[in-house]
């Protein structure tokens, strides 16, 4: 989970890293009376805020009020702004960059320091890589003197800066560990005319798997894109019933093939094949972990609540323990209600799959449904190809637009 600036600063504050004096504003009426040089900093999750005009110089509380009225609750960089930090402007003689993150290839944390901060660190890396120091940290030992000293020695003779910098690096590492961060950075870390160090901006990404033991909790991130009614309804299915997973991930898309996949790797592979064969999904969703019939039934209803469908694709790898008859039973209930006339391609195998097959083929006969049932003898992505061909035929027969001609 990524944190906004004011949230990340709470972590820095907890370990005693010096920050500027600032006030969090969530309503224009709550702005204290002031005069002088301040900034309004819009709280966004996306980067690039400064360049996009999200940091606004302000002279007094009246100005601040007017701007906050214009900005709070409005969209900036595709995000609705709910918070603005009012920061006192401070004099700065120099700016550094410092960050800690896990490196997937070296399998350890890295400490990254740049003597040039306050700008995109990627740009520094591109233009003057010699300004960046990267240290691998042995997790068993934590941040050692030896990791910090090359940073301290290369730049400054000033004893005060050296000792402050050393303290901040140690505190930042402690913060990274204590709050289970996947990444934390201060950019810029500024030097004041009195040679004090202060963190002007911060970013942190928290490890969701360590949520249970984190001392400071933050509200769940809602999507930057507003959820559609179908997405909200699908998520609700999963919240209402803890057994298995169904609908936790749901994306409303603008194609014409309804999708019900199972399993993380399989669902992505199915969608990739759909794209490769020129199919257009009407949604993306997934169920797995042996959910009960009712959950799959509810999810199927949402998946089919879409006009102009030209197919339903149900797919997954051979299941280890998801009951195929039970889960497809949930799908069948909805098919019996709605009796869709478009082709339905199913590729499933696993516990009780013979029973599932019998059930669906019987429904095919009795209700005249266009069901194509495949088991493990048909490769998963081959079944996707069958779906696309049948869907194209269906559209052609009905003279529907958007038929892919190949």
């Amino acid at each position: 989970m990524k944190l906004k600036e004011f949230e990340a600063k709470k972590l820095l504050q907890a370990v005693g890293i010096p920050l500027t004096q600032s006030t969090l504003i969530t309503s224009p009426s709550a702005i204290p009376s002031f005069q002088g040089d301040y900034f309004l900093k819009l709280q966004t999750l996306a980067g690039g805020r400064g360049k996009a005009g999200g940091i606004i110089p302000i002279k007094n509380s009246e100005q601040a009020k007017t701007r906050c009225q214009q900005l709070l609750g409005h969209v900036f960089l595709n995000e609705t702004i709910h918070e603005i930090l009012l920061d006192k402007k401070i004099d700065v003689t120099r700016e550094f960059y410092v960050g800690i993150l896990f490196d997937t290839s070296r399998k350890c944390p890295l400490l990254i320091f740049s003597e040039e901060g306050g700008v995109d660190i990627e740009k520094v890396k591109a233009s003057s890589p010699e300004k960046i120091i990267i240290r691998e940290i042995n997790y068993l030992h934590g941040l050692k003197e030896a990791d910090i000293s090359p940073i301290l020695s290369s730049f400054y003779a000033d004893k005060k800066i050296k000792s402050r910098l050393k303290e901040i690096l140690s505190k930042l590492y402690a913060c990274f560990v204590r709050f289970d961060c996947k990444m934390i950075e201060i950019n810029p870390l500024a030097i004041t005319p009195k040679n004090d160090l202060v963190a002007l901006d911060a970013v942190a990404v928290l490890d969701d798997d360590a949520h249970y033991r984190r001392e400071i909790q933050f509200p769940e991130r809602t999507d930057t894109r507003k959820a559609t009614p179908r997405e909200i309804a699908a998520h609700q299915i999963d919240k209402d019933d803890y057994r298995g997973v169904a609908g936790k991930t749901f994306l409303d898309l603008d194609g014409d093939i309804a999708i019900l996949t199972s399993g993380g790797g399989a669902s992505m592979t199915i969608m990739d094949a759909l794209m490769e064969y020129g199919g257009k999904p009407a949604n993306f969703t997934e169920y797995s972990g042996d959910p009960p019939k009712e959950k799959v039934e509810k999810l199927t209803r949402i998946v089919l609540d879409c006009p102009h469908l030209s197919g339903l694709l149900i797919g997954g790898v051979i299941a280890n323990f998801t009951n195929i008859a039970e889960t497809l039973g949930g799908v069948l209930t909805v098919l019996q209600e709605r009796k869709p006339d478009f082709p339905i391609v199913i590729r499933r195998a696993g516990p009780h799959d013979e029973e599932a097959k019998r059930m669906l083929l019987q429904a095919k006969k009795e209700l005249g449904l266009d069901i194509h049932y495949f088991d493990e003898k048909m490769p998963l992505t081959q079944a996707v190809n069958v779906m696309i061909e049948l869907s194209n035929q269906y559209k052609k027969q009905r003279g529907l637009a958007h038929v892919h001609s190949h």
Partner: protein
Amino acid sequence: MSILIDKKTRFLIQGITGKQGTRACHEMQEFGGKVVAGVTPGKGGEQVEGVPVYNTVKEALQHHHVDASVLYIPPKFAKEAIIEAIEGGISLLNVVTENIPIHDMAYCLALVKQKGARIVGACSAGIYSVGKAKSGSIAGGKSRLAFTPGTIGVMSRSGGMSCETSLVLTQAGLGQSTVVSMGSDVLMGSTFLDFLPDFEKDSETEGLVIFGEIGGTAEEELAAYLIQRRQSGNSYLKPIVAFISGKFAEAINVQNVSLGHAGAIIEGNKGTRKHKVKVLKEAGVIIAEVHHDLGRLMKQTLNGISER
């Protein structure tokens, strides 16, 4: 031959009395594997499927020789369990547990590096040396139908797709030597690169098939290794065919939360499907654009080699 595990491997199961652990024990025995002991704190003295259960790894090791441990431990307790196994001197740890906090994994990976052991996982569905022995939940239930003994090594970042990948090979008439589900976390015990020397030494393995995903740099590291081998005049001789999933995910932009600027300067433009495919191709890896093509492409490649 095979890699990592075979008929002689003596397994310990940590978390053997849990539902999943017991199930894995049953299946591993069914596949002919030697499960010599299990560990669950507080359950010492019990038996699971005829296997003695101990309170600690240390105690289990006093009574048994163990080559590999399979860990079915809840994420909160996984770190302690992994440390126990490493400190006990077990050389191969197959961690099945999902959702282990990344800082716990970082500690374990640093420890494993110091002690010289090897972790496969976390979030691994298991390892299967086909027809010989399996570790973990891989090839459970009906999914065992997907596998046949043979000469292709399989490495997969997805547990489910390690089965489906073996299935498309089986259907193309290609059996598998060892199938490794290696997990897909930010910090993985072992990645493609780590298994390459094992498969190279394994006389039974003729080719490798890879299921990769977007995110991380495991595919890029593999490519860099292959190129470096080629440049040093010592090319990796076994052909590699790969499928990299992520076309859809990138098209709709549901990638993992980016690590922002710091991530960008470490990984650059790595991590995208496009980049992975590009560097793998440069390294001589054959790319399947749809998954079930893996079988056909590997068959073609092997035939090409035998005709030469």
